[in-house]
């Protein structure tokens, strides 16, 4: 039988109030309107502050160039994120299985995390081909939240469940696959959400750092390039695309998290009041 019990808590449905959509849009319209007014009344030239209409026109005019650059940056972001996911979870599992490995390497993971990526990027660009350096930057900033959160999750296993697995003679592998990883899943997904945004930041920082080298084609490189040419409207247009990409990445990862947790985890369940 598949019928849910009658007293089952209702799983959250897309219960977003219309106010949550209308109010931020109204705020946006108001802000953009003020911006447009200030530019028109003050007769500001586009290289000082372009009007929103000019930015929009630039977005349309330069669309093919900006879109292709966005794809390049997004590819780096997702590759970095995928590597961060593999590296972060892999390292967390390794640390969890062996204290010696954890003691040997964990401090360096922290050092890598606390050293500002802007300072690492130029060095990486010297030693690595540009594409690899950009990817490495995205990975360095994105892997740590996955590692830290997964480690926390693997160590947060219910003690009694651990006893139960021991009682039934579960192997180390069975404990890892059937108990520790599922327990850690909500933590991993939390780390993934942070890592998605950070991976984009890492990619952008590396592209900006590589900008003067001139070989790049990502969106951040376009911003740097447009800056040198005082093409301020294009800088704004590229910035808007970057922000939108960040928001879309966040929403996509939130959706993944919701889909994976909606049947069982408190964070994805809506309470009926």
């Amino acid at each position, binding site marked *: *039988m*598949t*019928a*849910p*019990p009658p*007293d*089952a*808590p209702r799983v959250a449905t897309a219960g977003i109030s219309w106010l949550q959509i209308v109010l931020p849009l109204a705020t946006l319209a108001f802000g953009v309107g003020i911006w447009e007014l200030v530019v028109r009344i003050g007769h500001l030239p586009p290289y000082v502050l372009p009007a929103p209409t000019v930015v929009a026109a630039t977005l349309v005019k330069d669309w093919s160039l900006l879109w292709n650059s966005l794809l390049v940056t997004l590819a780096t972001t997702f590759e970095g994120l995928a590597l961060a996911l593999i590296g972060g979870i892999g390292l967390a599992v390794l640390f969890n299985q062996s204290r010696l490995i954890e003691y040997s390497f964990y401090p360096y993971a922290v050092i890598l995390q606390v050293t500002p990526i802007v300072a690492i990027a130029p060095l990486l660009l010297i030693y690595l081909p540009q594409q690899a350096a950009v990817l490495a930057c995205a990975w360095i900033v994105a892997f740590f939240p996955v590692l830290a959160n997964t480690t926390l999750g693997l160590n947060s296993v*219910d003690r*009694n*469940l651990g*006893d*139960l*697995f*021991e*009682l*039934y*003679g*579960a192997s180390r592998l*069975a404990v890892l696959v*059937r*108990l520790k990883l*599922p*327990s850690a*899943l909500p933590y991993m997904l939390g780390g993934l959400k942070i890592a998605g945004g950070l991976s984009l930041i890492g990619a952008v920082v590396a592209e900006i750092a590589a900008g003067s080298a001139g070989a790049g084609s990502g969106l951040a490189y376009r911003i740097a390039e447009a800056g040198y040419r005082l093409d301020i409207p294009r800088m704004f247009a590229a910035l808007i695309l970057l922000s939108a990409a960040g928001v879309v990445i966040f929403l996509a990862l939130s959706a993944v998290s919701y889909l994976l947790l909606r*049947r*069982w*985890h408190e964070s994805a*369940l809506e309470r009926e009041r």
Partner: protein
Amino acid sequence: MTLASPTTDRPIVALTGVTKRFASGTRALDGLDLAITSGEFVSLLGPSGCGKSTALRLIAGLSEPTSGAISWSGTKPGARRNGLEVGFVFQEPTLMPWTTVANNVALPLALAGVARDVAGKRVAQALDHVGLAAFRDAYPRELSGGMKMRVSIARGLVTDPPLLLMDEPFAALDEITRFKLNDDLITLWRAVGNTVVFVTHSVFESVYLSSRIVVMTPRPGRIFADLMIDAPFPRDESFRTSAEYAGYCRTVSQALAQAMAQTVVGGKP
């Protein structure tokens, strides 16, 4: 003596001179001698801190005695028992929240490498026993506290263990649910015919369920009294309200009071 199940009197597990001392220096158990006879429903009764849960964990093999021996029928002393011989029900339902009721119950079989189709049948049977056949695809989050505990019991029974260990399984439930589960547990025990060791701090619950009650003293845990409850099974509401039940409760309460008084005289409150 009127034992409930028609079984022999050989002990299924025997603890001899078992002492458990924790790293903190606490002596949880001190020279415990306890033989569990096959087919019994034994309650370990005592205040918190009397080592009854520790004794249960030692029997389950989740902890090693500091000294003394635990021997199983048919095995050499000290031989490690097979995981499938013991079922364990914790105070909390201890279910995996990320998977269904059926998968939770199937866990012991899956860990033992039992084939999926065989496991499926046994899971269905175990869920049937606890009256949750209709909820096999539900998630633990969707069940009430009593239902979760039933799932936990089904999981304890799915391997058909000769010995079921229960650590205050109903302590967190409301009285109505608790009475219902007490009744169901008696029915289940008589149907399955296994041996149960049940830890509780409730005099009334222990008298209602048990064929034998072992009263323990706290700090260090020792056996103070070993009482047979000879009232016939099945027991039901009429037993719960009978003079006989009240009489047993009085006897056991007095034993418990003496056990605790002895501890106070011994110097450690």
